[in-house]
């Protein structure tokens, strides 16, 4: 059956009633069709009643749209009690004249059918309830109970058709729930009557982990997300997690945040990571991934950036104690309210709930830095594909909020630099990828750190050796040997060799100096001797000259006398 469709005007600005349910409004691009019925179907226990109830309550509390809940299954008191645990106070809303809960009891044993009838009684009840609080939202949960209470299917079907027309005329946004049938969406084929918007809920258990999923089967007159979206029921009700935001249009920042490790900053051209980027630190066991992460956390806290540290392996106390041993005082930041350490075992709950916990904490704490240590552990909860899809969503969310994130990831292979599962699944998502690795040599193990990639920033290509002392991480200067970069003992022996060479050189120099001094002395002596020679010759000459002068004088005198 076709319900008369939308006119041209509606096509342009399709009126929608926001559900107020986390994520669902994004999938449906604004909510359920306003003034039209929406069908929510699914098997037992998949959250139909809760979803519809949340739609009503959010309508009242957030959009000031009073609502009527017509229950064919649960008495009003039971309903109040059931949703009270989710933090909704139906009694208060009822007292405020914002909500009417009407329980329609259809008891086959009490009813005898004798002749023709119609469901005007139901219409009148509903109409009365709607008018009494001027409701714009209506929930009928579960209309199909009528089929078990009444015999005459022909009348029932005709009346249902009339009911939906009537609801549309009333202009209320209606939600009808229906139990899932064998081959049809609902057991009684309600989708025939309600065809504006159909939402299918599903509850699956895969490897002992349950996942609830939601899918918009159809939505007339509007585009919508078509995928299956996981959703969760927790103490705040239902939240749907859109797998990915459809666009990649988050704002980017050119701010740079420091890594916290002296030396590593210098490996990046601009001295750190971009704010809002994702950093992955990968490495094999015991390569100080957590230490690197804690350094980052410490640095951010020192700068007054609020930070959440999600530890999947260590308890907060353990983490704080361990970091104290290398001179990082995380406790101080925790006390300041700057740092939040959240520890949970990956297997505690499914991936979706993990993601939701992250989301919730991020929403509440409003951090600018988030650290996940380690993400590779999550693989134990879900398959690679699921982990990836979760991480994509997480990264999306972090980017959207401009949160700088650091993930650590354990790689299994020791001799391969290139990554395994966890890394491969995320490597294309992260902006910066730092690897810490073991460098095994002659009987020793050294730690090296290097940058595999850093989007939008030049970076060093060197593997830098670092040591962890009581004072923390210390990056050593690059030592170049004949066969490349030297580490550990090789570095030390090289240093020794260098020293020897230096000493040798020095003594050689000293020797040369001495020789020159000696040579100078000889030279000077020679000069002295020559000078003496010269002087004696000079003296001789002057003596000779003097003698000659005297002889001449004598000669002259002789002539005069003659």
């Amino acid at each position, binding site marked *: 059956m076709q319900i008369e469709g939308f006119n041209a005007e509606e096509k342009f600005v399709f009126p929608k009633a926001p559900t107020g349910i986390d994520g669902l409004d994004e999938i449906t691009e604004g909510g359920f069709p306003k003034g039209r019925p929406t069908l929510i179907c699914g098997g037992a226990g998949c959250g139909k009643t809760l979803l519809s109830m949340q739609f009503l309550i959010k309508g009242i509390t957030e959009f000031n749209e009073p609502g009527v809940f017509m229950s064919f299954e649960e008495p009003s008191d039971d309903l109040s009690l059931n949703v009270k645990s989710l933090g909704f106070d139906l009694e208060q809303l009822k007292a405020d004249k914002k909500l009417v809960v009407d329980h329609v009891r259809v008891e086959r044993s009490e009813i005898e059918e*004798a002749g023709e009838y119609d469901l005007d009684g139901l219409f009148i009840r509903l109409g009365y309830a709607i008018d009494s609080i001027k409701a714009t939202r209506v929930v009928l949960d579960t209309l199909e109970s009528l089929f078990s209470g009444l015999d005459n299917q022909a009348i029932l079907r005709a009346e249902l058709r009339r009911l939906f027309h009537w609801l549309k005329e009333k202009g209320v946004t209606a939600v009808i729930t229906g139990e899932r049938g064998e081959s049809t969406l609902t057991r009684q084929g309600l989708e025939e009557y309600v065809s504006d918007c159909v939402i299918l809920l599903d509850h699956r258990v895969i490897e002992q982990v349950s996942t609830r999923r939601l899918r918009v089967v159809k939505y007339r007159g509007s585009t919508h997300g078509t995928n299956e979206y996981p959703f969760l029921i927790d103490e705040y009700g239902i939240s749907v997690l859109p797998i990915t935001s459809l666009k990649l249009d988050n704002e980017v920042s050119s701010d740079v945040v420091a890594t916290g490790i002296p030396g590593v900053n210098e490996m990046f051209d601009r001295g750190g990571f971009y704010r809002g980027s994702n950093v992955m630190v990968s490495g094999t066991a015991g390569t100080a991934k957590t230490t690197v992460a804690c350094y980052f956390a410490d640095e951010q806290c020192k700068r007054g950036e609020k930070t959440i540290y999600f530890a999947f392996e260590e308890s907060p106390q353990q983490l704080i104690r361990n970091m104290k041993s290398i001179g990082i005082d995380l406790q101080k930041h925790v006390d300041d309210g700057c740092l939040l350490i959240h520890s949970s075992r990956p297997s505690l709950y499914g991936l979706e709930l993990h993601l939701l916990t992250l989301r919730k904490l991020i929403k509440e704490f409003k951090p600018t830095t988030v650290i996940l240590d380690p993400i590779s552990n999550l693989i134990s909860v879900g398959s690679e594909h699921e982990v990836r899809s979760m991480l994509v969503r997480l990264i999306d969310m972090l980017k959207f909020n401009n949160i700088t994130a650091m993930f650590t990831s354990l790689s299994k292979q020791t001799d391969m630099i290139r990554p395994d599962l966890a890394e491969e699944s995320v490597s294309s998502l992260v902006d910066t990828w730092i690897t810490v690795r073991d460098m095994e040599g002659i009987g020793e193990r050294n730690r090296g750190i290097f940058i595999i990639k850093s989007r939008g920033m030049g970076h060093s290509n060197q593997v830098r050796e670092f040591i962890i002392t009581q004072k923390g991480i210390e990056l050593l200067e690059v030592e170049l040997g004949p066969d490349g970069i030297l580490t550990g003992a090789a570095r030390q022996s090289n240093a020794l060799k260098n020293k020897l060479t230096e000493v040798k050189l020095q003594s050689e120099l000293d020797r040369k100096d001495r020789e020159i001094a000696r040579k100078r002395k000889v030279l000077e002596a020679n000069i002295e001797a020559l000078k003496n020679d010269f002087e004696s010759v000079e003296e001789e000459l002057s003596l000779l000259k003097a003698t000659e002068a005297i002889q001449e004088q004598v000669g002259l005198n002789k002539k005069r006398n003659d």
Partner: protein
Amino acid sequence: MIDSETALTLNENDGAEWQLLLYIAGQTPKSIRALSNIKKYAEEHLAGKYSIEIIDLLKSPQLAEGDQILAVPTLVRRVPEPIRKIIGDLSNEERVLVGLNIKPVTK
């Protein structure tokens, strides 16, 4: 045929052995038929010991919830207990009598 009063008691008989309520929604052919039918059966089988109250839900919709009215017309047997409900225009005499648990007067 049906009075414009909201609730019309057909014959004043508070302590009647059989207290019947007929819920209708306006004067539709179905409700008119239902009323004439129940009157006929009552006269036939319960003469002198019954009362029929007619409630028009169009005029007093708030009454629908109390008796869990869903379909109209609905005939409710208040007394004797337990409460029984018969929906429809009551054209099927046998089912009405079974529903009300009236043993037909021997014919």
